């Protein structure tokens, strides 16, 4: 299974902001879409990622954090995934590097975002399915004919 299989059942694209937008606007977007991170883009190219944590960190030490811009607080060194990346590797990299949200790009263009939760759920469903299928094969023969 790969990233494309996760994006296929996630209707929404990643929610994006421009680096010039204010943190106030970014918070409104996070709230409206009930999500944990935004991808900052220039055109359709991701240039940063802004997570709720980035905002909390700033809010803890700066009363006037509302007025800062996305560009000020975002992480610029974004790790991005590609649709054919396999989930085993992606899960490893996300957990090792403590990445919760992975923007996905195809030929430099943002095509979606997957969260660590999405990746782990897809893996769990895959394993659960494999176990179920193996059980069927092992129990085969206990009554009835195959079709």
């Amino acid at each position, binding site marked *: 299974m790969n990233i494309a299989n996760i994006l296929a059942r996630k209707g929404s694209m990643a929610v994006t902001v421009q680096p010039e937008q204010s943190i106030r606007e970014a918070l409104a977007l996070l709230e409206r879409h009930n999500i944990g991170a935004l991808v900052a883009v220039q055109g359709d190219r991701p240039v940063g990622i802004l997570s709720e944590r980035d905002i909390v960190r700033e809010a803890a030490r700066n009363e006037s954090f509302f007025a800062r811009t996305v560009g000020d607080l975002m992480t610029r060194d974004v*790790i991005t995934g590609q649709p054919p990346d396999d989930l085993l590797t992606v899960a490893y*990299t996300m957990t090792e590097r403590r990445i919760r949200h992975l923007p996905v790009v195809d030929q430099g263009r943002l095509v979606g975002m997957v969260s660590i939760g999405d990746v782990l759920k897809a893996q769990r469903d895959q394993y659960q399915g494999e176990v179920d299928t193996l059980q069927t094969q092992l*129990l085969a023969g206990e009554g009835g004919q195959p079709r």
Partner: protein
Amino acid sequence: MTPTTGTSARPLRVAIVGAGPTGFYAADHLLRNPEVVVEVDMFDRLPTPYGLVRLGVAPDHQKIKFVTNAFDKVAASLRFRFYGGVEFGKDVTLADLQAHYHQIVYCTGAQTDRRMGIPGEDLTGSHPATEFVAWYNGHPDYRDCAFDLSQESVAVVGVGNVAADVVRILCRTPEELAITDVADYALEALRKSRVREVYLLGRRGPAQAAFTNPEVRELGELADADITAIPQEVELDPLSRAAVERSQDRATLKKVEMLREYARRAPTGKSRRLVLRFLVSPVELISDGAGRVAAMRLVRNELYATSTGALQPRATDRFEELPVGLVFRSVGYRGVPLPGVPFNESWGVILNDKGRVLDPDTKQPIVGEYAAGWIKRGPTGVIGTNKPDAAETVECMFEDLARGAVLEPTRPEAAAAEALVRQRQPNYVSYTDWLKLNEIEVARGRAQGRPRVKLTSVEEMLAALGR
């Protein structure tokens, strides 16, 4: 006052489109809910149920087909009906279903193949594996396909489990095949096969090959085909070695070990040879001058790590030519759009969020329409993987019912739906009819020491039912 939907006075009426594993898992999940009374009508364009379990799973893999016993239990519910031979978009439309059901779930699978996108792909002798698979399994739409098995050299592109199925069927002896439920006409054609060399071509290395270990092991145990691989191609490159050592993924370690053992094997004089190749991509199919495949041009690949660390292939400037007269591309299946249902071209699936079909303009859920299985997430995963997938969709359906977000059909009675189907497709096949067909197939098989002898045309099936 009208009673609440989902009670015995007014059951929740659900149409499931597609009778593959996903359709049955969805039906099971719907019918099991202790709080909601659900009635399920399941439609399939074919008279026979089970989707790819009947028409995809290889004939020499009978054990996995026992999963259908569980499907029959679902179908035995008094609140379940099967309408076989009824195609969505042709015999019944979206508007028809909206007039008769509160909810519709599309479980139509992936009905076509992906292409390689290389010159020569459409030469005579180049086929999608999907067609070959459907043909040897007796799919009524593919029984008239023809494959030139007089060719001695065949290439199968892709190293997934479907590719493994295809090479096994090409390499098996008539005796091995004769005890399976392979379609009769295919058995005859394969008996006459002159195929001697089968190449299985992976674009990445052995550690990235998609086929699973039981399938790899089987390839090394064929009665009359020697397996071999090229030693340099099954040695891990530094990137793959690092990845395998880091993850310590047992299955991958075992797979690579088996493949290396194949590379060391000496030929034992069997009449066929199966050659596993890695790190090569076809770049062109070369014509014999008369429109037939005569050879395949391959480029050697190397691997590079993407930013997540996944290893992907990159072409080098080294090429080679492989003389082959028959090519099967097994590079994945692809979903097809259904009339009136939003489609996501990027991934070849119905546009959905966790199974709720979305309006392409607003990206908001469309009331009453859902998707599950391969048409929801793409063509990957074994049969069982569709169970949690279908459960996720059905949970969304129950949530929406609780919010009152269901269709308001004008004729929500089982009898009205049946009358509609009868009018549109008088020859529809019920589950009872199917169980009769099943008995006929099994009886025909018993006489020949086979699990069954399949009926492979709709006419034959209807005739067997006395129509």
